[in-house]
């Protein structure tokens, strides 16, 4: 609960461009350990690969805002789900310290083992909402979600809209 954004950035060094104001942002609901674990899951759901993923988009900030506000009733699911995920991790990778510290391949194997659970489906929903939802919720930074799918953010468009209507009009 008591982690500043600066500590977060230092710990995971994935927000190179974070502004000074953002650097002082704190989580409202999550604690640092849970946030790191949830973000590790989110970053396998939408990986930061050749294009920005859940990390670069700041999905964890969306999730924190959701659990602090509209989705308060999902807190217990997160707490329980994280505990069950740790148990599964311990079973699959004995001696490992955390989900965040697993290798990428191990993380994928762990998530494949829990992907049918209500917890995973909830994290997937939140990750997707954080990645593709409006940036005002803390995720989808620089509209990376909309850029991924080729959506131009504008208030008005004019025909032709696509290839086929353009070709038909010629």
């Amino acid at each position, binding site marked *: 609960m008591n982690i500043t954004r600066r500590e977060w950035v230092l710990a995971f060094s994935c927000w190179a461009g974070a502004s000074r104001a953002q650097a002082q942002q704190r989580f409202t609901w999550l604690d640092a350990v849970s946030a790191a674990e949830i973000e590790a899951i989110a970053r396998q759901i939408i990986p930061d690969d050749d294009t920005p993923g859940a990390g670069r988009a700041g999905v964890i900030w969306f999730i924190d805002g959701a659990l602090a506000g509209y989705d308060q009733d999902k807190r217990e699911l997160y707490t329980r789900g994280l505990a069950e995920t740790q148990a599964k991790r311990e079973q699959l990778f004995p001696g490992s310290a955390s989900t965040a510290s697993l290798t990428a391949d191990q993380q994928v194997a762990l998530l494949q083992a829990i*992907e049918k659970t209500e917890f995973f489906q909830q994290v997937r*929903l939140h990750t997707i909402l954080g990645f593709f939802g*409006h940036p005002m919720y803390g995720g989808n930074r620089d509209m990376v979600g909309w850029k991924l*799918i080729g959506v131009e953010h504008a*208030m008005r468009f004019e025909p032709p809209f696509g290839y086929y209507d353009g070709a038909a009009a010629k």
Partner: protein
Amino acid sequence: MSAQYRPTDTVDFIVVGAGAAGGVMAKELATAGFRVVVLEQGPWRHEKDFTHDEVNVMFRSGLTNDHRKQPNTFRKTSGDPAKPQPAVEYGRMVGGGSVHFTTNYWRFHPEDFRERSALGSIPSADLQDWPITYDELEPYYTKAEWELGISGLGGSNPFDGPRSKPYPLPPMPVKSSGVLFERAAKKLGLHPFPAPVAVISQPYRGRAACVHCGFCESFGCEMGAKSSTLAALIPGAVKSGRCEIRPNSYVRKIEVGNDGRVRGAIYFDDAGREIFQRAKAVVVSANGAETPRLLLMSKSKAFPHGLANSSGNVGKYLMFDNGALAVGLFEHPLNEYKSIVVTRVLHDFYRTDPKRGFYGGGGLDSRFDNYPAGFALSGMPKDMPQWGSEWKRAVGQYYTHMNGVLAHTSCLAVEQNSISLDDNVKDAWGLPALRVTFKNHPDDLRAIQFCAERQKEILETAGAKKIWIDPESMAETTYSRHLMGTCRMGDDPHSSVVNRWNRAHDVPNLFLVDGSSLVTCGRQQPTATIQALAYRTADHIQQAARRGEI
């Protein structure tokens, strides 16, 4: 200047619900000289209040009934326990569903009004003729199209009934989805036509034309270009000086006097206070789910089983919207996220064809039904991973390159399918939750299956590289945004709730005007028919009032 009445003023009409029908009733009655109070449970939003915020609108009930505050319960048959489960959705605001609907504006076909005569009875269903014909309703379809502002091309659908006037506005520009659909359908010998839509393609009566922003379905229009009652009618109702719109006013009971006539409505205001508004007559336009619920909650000595329910049929014969979505992936970008949802439609499979061996059929439209998060969440084909790098790459490639064909298929009226009051679950105001009992008639599912094959053929012919149908959209319907049939119209007071003028058989000064009076549901897309019925009822009320017959 908006009128303001005191609860102790006996106004001429209360209209419960300011939606697709209530907005029509408010404007028509107020401009005809009646004093009207509109009680709307939702807020009064304006163009500036509407957003492109998918999280709020699609995932947090931003514009619709919030199931956290107003829970539903659901069961398939009356023998099953009803469990809390969202089952009905409606626009909860001034303008109602007309604010957030997709804007398809089809008329029912002439044969929709007399299917029982044409087809005979259907086992396990209660198919009935309407007491009115298409010809009786036609002038009011036309009136609705002109009052609201509908864009389309009259005469372009060979299966439509006769029209007395063209549409007031030309069709919207065709999108890539429409071009592909039209080309494929013609190759298959079918008859695609430009979609009639409640969006203005040109400036109309002081409203600016659509700018193709792409946030039509489920969203409110920031431009006032969607022809909702909020944009097209409510301003005129208010301007009459005789209509007061009271938002955040949740009616819990319609009061009846010793003479068996309604005398007003009790509602909770924004602060949760109970207020009794007096009126000479009441129009309930609360939608096909909330109207029967309100009647069932309005028990009295005169009506121990619910208001206007001597037939026992209030709430029965609920009809839902059925139909599967087929999706195709194409070589070039379509950019369907721009502009309105539907630009081409076909009705070739609409009529019941006895050769097919089941009742019903469907209207097909070419559409893009997605917003980014909803698409990523559940719009991708299920034969690939649903998370991770491969999925992410596919999501990135698919969004601008795909298009759907949606079927709007028949739904038979079945007595057991119904709205009733839940015995256990209450809403945030302490009122009984809306209980839905619904199980598709077998012919509903056969129509969905039949149309799904046609949808796939069209996408194949259009050259789609990959085609998929969400198996869930082929399953039995458990959730609906089209709420129809629960206070049926008919000539016989023993088997119907309202008469041919949408007046309650049991109560002369009570009118039910919304999806609840529909006897059959055509092939979905009921808004045009609901609004035509509203114009017809408003006309009748004015004439009856002049004769002192209300």
